[in-house]
């Protein structure tokens, strides 16, 4: 007990020192930013002062358009995650459990994963037209690959003893998936979910930027088109904060052992 008390004091001091460093670093970043904004190195308005950004943030938060666009983007990302992520999990389970399927198609998934998905937008646009469906499909394509790869990798690490238990209980393939694979796959699926969320958000928002008249991506590019740069910074800051918050929420699904 006494030992843990002694060892925790330096640890607490270290955490305090780290927080202090982070605070000092934040202030230093802020000072550098303000100097850049006021030095006139960039064209006027390209690097707005933090006061202008905070003022823009305040106005954006009071604007009903933000919530309307946010609702649309959130809906598209959720549906894209459900479709793309669901298909990714299904492929991962099937490819991991059935060796022939895994070895036949995994290389294609693995090598297609790093291709820039945005280039598929014209094809998706031809198929689904301008509207919500196009954005959801692009988000779903983006979410599929990280989910499939994470699940496939996870299936291969399931302990053989668990599989033998399932087989000795004569579980059906569906029961094997639900009772053996999915519980054992919680950590890789949550990791895949985090990545899939990031990619789905990018896919949906880039589609909104390129061809839409609603959503946060559209709102951002409208700010750019009207050279409302402070508003653009404020909106992107807001999006990054929401994305970080969702990431933290997904992280809480991670098993704690």
């Amino acid at each position: 007990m006494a030992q843990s008390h002694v060892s925790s004091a330096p640890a607490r001091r270290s955490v305090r020192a780290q927080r202090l460093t982070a605070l000092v670093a934040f202030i230093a970043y802020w000072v550098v930013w303000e100097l850049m904004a006021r030095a006139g190195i960039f064209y006027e308005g390209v690097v707005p002062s933090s006061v202008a950004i905070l003022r823009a943030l305040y106005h954006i938060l009071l604007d009903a358009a933000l919530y309307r666009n946010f609702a649309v983007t959130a809906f598209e990302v959720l549906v894209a995650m459900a479709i793309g992520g669901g298909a990714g999990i299904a492929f991962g389970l099937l490819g991991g459990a059935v060796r022939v399927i895994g070895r036949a198609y995994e290389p294609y998934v693995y090598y297609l994963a790093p291709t820039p998905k945005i280039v598929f937008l014209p094809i998706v646009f031809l198929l689904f037209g301008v509207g919500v469906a196009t954005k959801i499909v692009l988000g779903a394509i983006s979410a599929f690959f990280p989910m499939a790869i994470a699940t496939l990798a996870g299936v291969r690490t399931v302990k053989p003893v668990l599989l033998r238990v399932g087989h000795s209980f004569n579980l059906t393939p569906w029961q094997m998936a639900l009772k053996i694979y999915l519980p054992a796959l919680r950590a890789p699926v949550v990791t895949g979910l985090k990545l899939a969320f990031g990619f789905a958000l990018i896919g949906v928002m880039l589609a909104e930027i390129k061809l839409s008249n609603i959503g946060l991506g559209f709102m951002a590019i409208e700010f750019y088109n009207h050279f409302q740069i402070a508003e653009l910074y404020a909106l992107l800051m807001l999006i990054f904060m929401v994305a970080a918050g969702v990431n933290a929420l997904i992280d809480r699904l991670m098993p704690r052992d």
Partner: protein
Amino acid sequence: MRLLRSPALLGLATIAAVAGLMELLVAWGALPSYIFVRPSAVLLSIVGLFRDEELGWRLLQTLGATMAAAGLAAVSGVPIGWMIHRYRLFGEIFGNWLAALAAAPFILLYPLFLAVFGRGEPTIIAMAYVAALVAISLKTREGLASVPTVLRAVGAGFRLTQMQFFWKIEFRSAVPAIFSGIHLALVFALVNVVGIEFLIDYGGMGGLIADLADRYEVPSMYAAILFVVLVSVLFFWATERLERWLNPM
């Protein structure tokens, strides 16, 4: 049965079957030809792209921007990774920001880069550079931090100077992670270069796809997308091989 015994053959057969089915369905008019294109027409269009749309030059533009961004990232990312590892204060100030940037949907910042650098190569290279820099510096830090304790003990036992310790122990142990970082940096740079070219309708292969889509030249557009996918896959495969070749450990 033979297909089931050879998974690679099964994969190729599936692609050939889908392409064949598509060819027939479009030829019979079961699928609208203004949306779907016969795979044979797409393949033929690739030749036309080289002749009429300077695809070779566009490819060089994209690869040039990728190499410039990844090269700059390698030159600056390895020292940054080393400094984050070596100096605690530097690590606390910049390490967490780099990690946060790696997880953030960074490409969404492209309108800001457009505002700062304008619509052209500087925006494309700058965005690809940041994406590549994050990968390479984090991987370098990871490699330097995971030097086996036994090697550290050997270094201490031989009373190596700080410089000797770095070159003979730390750097050599970190080489696999650094190569892995360079591989990731090249891939991230290519993805960002093509993506930004497409979004701002400028420059190499991404710009060509956006241009063809605007002109509604559907077969050529499909061909350009297929070409980009093939180049990306080949690039990923080649950089992976290069990483393994340079780093046989």
